[in-house]
């Protein structure tokens, strides 16, 4: 831990002071401000729209943070050789990966916490203006949804580390992360569709079924962390669902970081 902490601190500082984070934050605040405006314009299901809009803003902003600040933090180390200042210390490659990852987790937690405060304020203000539209409203569900968004962003960050450990440029890491994100969001629905195609009135070849099933186990199933709809409609989430989702997130993240560390151990920095 003694060497992980300094790496995490400098990674966090480098990330939080990055100008990109200001742009992303201003964009998020504008969206949360727009929440008040849009809710007042719709005048139907105002509560659900306000909650969905606030949570989607946090989720989308977090995604931008991982893609443009998180990846850049890792890429700069490799492209501009700032990694020399870390690896010339008594720090092993796995320690570098874990320390750096902790710094990015800290960055995600801080950014999401700040955004959550604004999101809660925006929902609270809409609720105050239109109390009749919030019959099954639940703050714990909103907080749970934000926690799930955070876990999915941490998992996605771990994947960026895995991709960065073997790719030669940050662009490849970015592309692979975006592909994983898209597949991860939809793989559960696609798997359900190809496994029971008759329900949709389509035919699917056995090879496609196998490919989708393989992708289901390789790519992270990010859709399990998406409980925005349940939060917006006030639908209950079971404790076992929470337990399995959190366990899945932790295990997948740990595996990605372990594999990244193993690959990184062999990497050279000429």
């Amino acid at each position, binding site marked *: 831990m*003694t*060497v992980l*902490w*300094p*790496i995490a*601190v*400098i990674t966090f*500082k*480098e990330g939080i*002071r*990055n100008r990109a984070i200001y742009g992303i934050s201003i964009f998020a605040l504008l969206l949360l401000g727009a929440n008040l405006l849009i809710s007042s314009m719709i005048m139907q299901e105002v509560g659900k729209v306000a909650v969905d809009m606030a949570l989607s803003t946090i989720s989308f902003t977090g995604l931008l943070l991982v893609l443009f600040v998180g990846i850049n933090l890792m890429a*700069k180390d490799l492209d*501009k*050789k*700032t990694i*020399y*200042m*870390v*690896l*010339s*210390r*008594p*720090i*092993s490659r796995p*320690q570098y990966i874990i320390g750096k990852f902790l710094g990015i987790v800290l960055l995600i937690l801080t950014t999401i916490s700040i955004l959550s405060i604004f999101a809660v304020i925006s929902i609270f203000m809409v609720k105050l203006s239109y109390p009749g539209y919030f019959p099954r409203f639940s703050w714990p569900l909103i907080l749970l949804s934000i926690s799930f968004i955070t876990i999915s962003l941490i998992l996605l960050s771990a994947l960026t580390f895995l991709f960065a450990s073997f790719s030669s440029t940050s662009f490849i890491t970015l592309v692979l992360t975006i592909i994983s994100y898209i597949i991860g969001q939809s793989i559960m629905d696609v798997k359900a569709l190809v496994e029971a195609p008759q329900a949709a009135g389509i035919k699917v070849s056995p090879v496609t079924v196998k490919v989708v099933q393989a992708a289901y186990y390789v790519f992270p199933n990010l859709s399990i962390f998406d409980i925005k709809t349940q939060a917006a409609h006030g639908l209950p989430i079971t404790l076992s669902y929470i337990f399995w989702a959190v366990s899945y997130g932790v295990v997948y993240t740990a595996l990605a970081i372990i594999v990244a560390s193993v690959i990184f151990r062999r990497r*050279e*920095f*000429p």
Partner: protein
Amino acid sequence: MIKIEGISKEFKEGIGSKRVMALKDLTLDIHKGEVFGFLGPNGAGKSTAIKILINLISPDAGRASIMGKDVMDKDTRRHVGYLPENPYFYDYLTAEELLWFGGRASGLSNKVIKERTDDLLNKVNLQVARKRQLRTYSKGMVQRAGIALALVHDPDVVILDEPMSGLDPIGRKMVGDIMMELKAQSKTIFFSSHILTDIERFCDRVGIIVSGKLRLVDRLDSLLSGAAALENIFLKEVEKAGGGVEI
């Protein structure tokens, strides 16, 4: 103190399978308290040898050790200070934070780091700019911050890759003074350069490397005791190796 035994390293050039020999069977022994100058034209393999000592790259053959420990062992670097060629650090950190990182990562307490930071930033004349982010620094200032970072944990072995590059005459004098001070403290210094006057000024021994092969290792005083100047000796070695003269 620093032992390099039969190290060879090849790099792949571009997408094709063409391979370039960066180091060929390099063997060197640098003693405690010695200032060793590694002299060679651009692309001779100086930085490759240094990066192997820091374990940034691994050799295809041979082994290297510092203070009796293999360079692959991360704990070796607890006693080693390293300045890379054209150093680049985190843009948004201040010099003070950079040195805090270096100190903490090397196991120093915050109190010791503060003392070392005050002392070193004074020496490299960055005391006024200590709270400024490194992205606002000039190239020379970054180089000086890099030297302070290399020395923050008071290492026994200091490895400097082109320490004078990018420095103005005042900066060069500053770094020269630091090197003399380290020499007086019996620190082992291994530095690469293609600036002959720097080698003549500081070194006890010199190694000339051309095209990845060590051509000559000798004490500076014995080299200069003959009629030839270091420049002529160096040029002769480059010519003998069949390389272009690029100083």
